[in-house]
């Protein structure tokens, strides 16, 4: 059984973005970079499946990016139990979802994975598309926003979040899942495994090695715009909670016009 986990390094959610005015460029130099939190659920799920199915299951983390992504790959993938990693080294920072999906497709097709796990979205660009595009391009079954997964080695039962409830989906390998919070609780890497992670194999690839061109973008990001300044905060000072609630409802209806 071969499992792939597609991961991305993203800025920490507490990163402060220095952008005073609209600009074509973002200064990313001071960013603290971490593994995309949803990808951590994908990694954990893959490792749990490996633990259940036994040692001939192999988990490979796949990432696209420069040398700086290796800290996350080592710490959050290899040290917690992935067996190896593949890093595609082409310059694809801030690429579109389809560009990324095409590169990942080349890797997945080359290696023939039975299962592919992704995060449900990356918290930086919030596209939520790469996983699904990858499944389509590879002609695999896919279930997105998965909160529960049962897998016996061939067949799966996945529960996915839908508006106001959940949906249970059954299918068979090859299959791709995008993972949602709640699926599991990612483990901390142990200190001995952190030390061993550096010795696990990492394959470096380029698009050329995969026999494809670096996929071209269809769009261009023209401007980054800082969020509008938050308005003044109004505090309702009324001792009586019922009266305060009434006043709040009135303001929401008449001033904010949102109810």
């Amino acid at each position, binding site marked *: 059984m071969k499992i792939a986990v597609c991961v991305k390094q993203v800025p920490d959610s507490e990163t402060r973005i220095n952008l005073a005015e609209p600009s074509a460029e973002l200064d990313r130099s001071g960013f603290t970079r971490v593994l995309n939190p949803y990808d951590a659920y994908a990694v954990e799920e893959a490792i749990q499946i490996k633990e259940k199915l036994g040692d001939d299951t192999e988990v490979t983390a796949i990432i696209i990016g420069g040398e700086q992504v290796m800290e996350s790959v080592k710490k959050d993938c290899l040290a917690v139990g992935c067996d190896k990693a593949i890093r595609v080294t082409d310059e694809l920072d801030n690429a579109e979802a389809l560009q990324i999906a095409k590169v990942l497709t080349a890797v997945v097709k080359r290696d023939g994975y039975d299962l592919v796990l992704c995060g449900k979205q990356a918290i930086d660009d919030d596209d939520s598309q790469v996983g699904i595009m990858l499944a389509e391009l590879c002609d695999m079954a896919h279930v997105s926003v998965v909160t529960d997964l049962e897998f016996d080695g061939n067949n799966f039962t996945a529960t996915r979040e839908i508006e106001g409830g959940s949906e249970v989906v059954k299918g068979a390998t090859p299959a791709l899942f995008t993972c949602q919070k709640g699926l599991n609780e990612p483990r901390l*890497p142990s200190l001995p495994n*952190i030390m061993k992670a550096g010795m696990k194999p990492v394959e470096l690839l380029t698009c050329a090695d995969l026999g494809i061109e670096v996929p071209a973008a269809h769009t261009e990001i023209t401007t980054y715009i800082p969020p509008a300044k938050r308005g003044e905060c109004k505090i309702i000072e009324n001792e009586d909670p019922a009266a305060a609630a009434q006043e709040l409802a009135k303001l929401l209806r008449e001033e904010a016009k949102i109810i």
Partner: protein
Amino acid sequence: MQKYNGVDFYSFEKTLTDEQRSIRDTVRGFVENKFMPLVRDSYRDGTFPLELSSEMGQIGLLGSSISGYNCPGLSYTDYGIICQELERGDSGLRSFASVQGSLVMWPIATFGSDEQKEKWLPALASGSAIGCFGLTEADHGSDPGSMITTATPDGDNWILNGNKMWITNATTADVAVIWARGPEGISGFLVEKRTDGFSSAPIHGKMSLRASDTGELILDNVKIPGSCQLPGAKGLKAPLACLNQARYGIAWGAIGAAAACYDHALKYAQEREQFDKPIAGFQLVQAKLVEMITEITKAQGLVYRLAQLKDAGIDDVYLTSMAKRNNVAMALDCARVARDILGAAGITDDHPIARHMANLESVYTYEGTHDIHTLIIGAEITGIPAYRG
């Protein structure tokens, strides 16, 4: 409040390896997710949250600088980083790891027989067994060489008699490293829980290090086989060498406690408004914060250098004494200033500061009091030991 992101004004951590930063993040994650939710109740109850012991073992936090026997064999720098992150949570948590690793596993690994190592090290590393270190006696603290606990040979066995006081993990330990005076001077022994004549009692009424088990060990004609003696531990220098290991961890740990107080006080001062502006905007408050981060940064300079020295095999006691002495006093000052910045809020356990402040009083005293370390350094630079008349 925002999550804790460490205090590293001079970017010492930039010079660490990826692995060392991962170790930091793992320990920080463990402290944040597993320990912080428990610490307030543990402190109130006066207990250590023992349920964390096996998880600490699993992660590799117990005896992490020991090699072999399922221990990770990390460097001194790694071990320091671990202590700094643990004590950011609570001195009691770091004490638990220090005692287990430096005061129990280290002497077994250094002075023990192969049989002792095989029996105890894997169990202690996994957290399934807990250890304690019995050196101090009620009437023999700073001067442990005058101890009165005795070890008397009896055929192939030893008979131990005496009382040990102020012992961390005393009532929970499965094995105690006991130091006693025998015919050939001070020797070390491994005494198992439930050995006849061996008992423990908790010390009640502590106002410091409450999230830690501190107790008394009573040895009343305890008969143990000769194989329980640590064969390599000869004389007072053996337990003192253990303390030197643990003190090194304390020098790092104290920075964690100071950083927790500084970080908390800074965030509080940025949010708390008086006279229509955040108190962080007043010059006097800024001066306090600046003093704290300067002292923390200087303390980090000491331990990062000390770690290099130790990793290079240079391990003189007075080097560690300087870092323990300076850093614990520094942390205590930081805790007091941080408490001041929080005003009345600072005295409650809604905030971590009073807890750190009270804890650090113990840390100031144990593993050689502040003044004993002054005398160790004084003896080194003057050539004249001042401890005795």
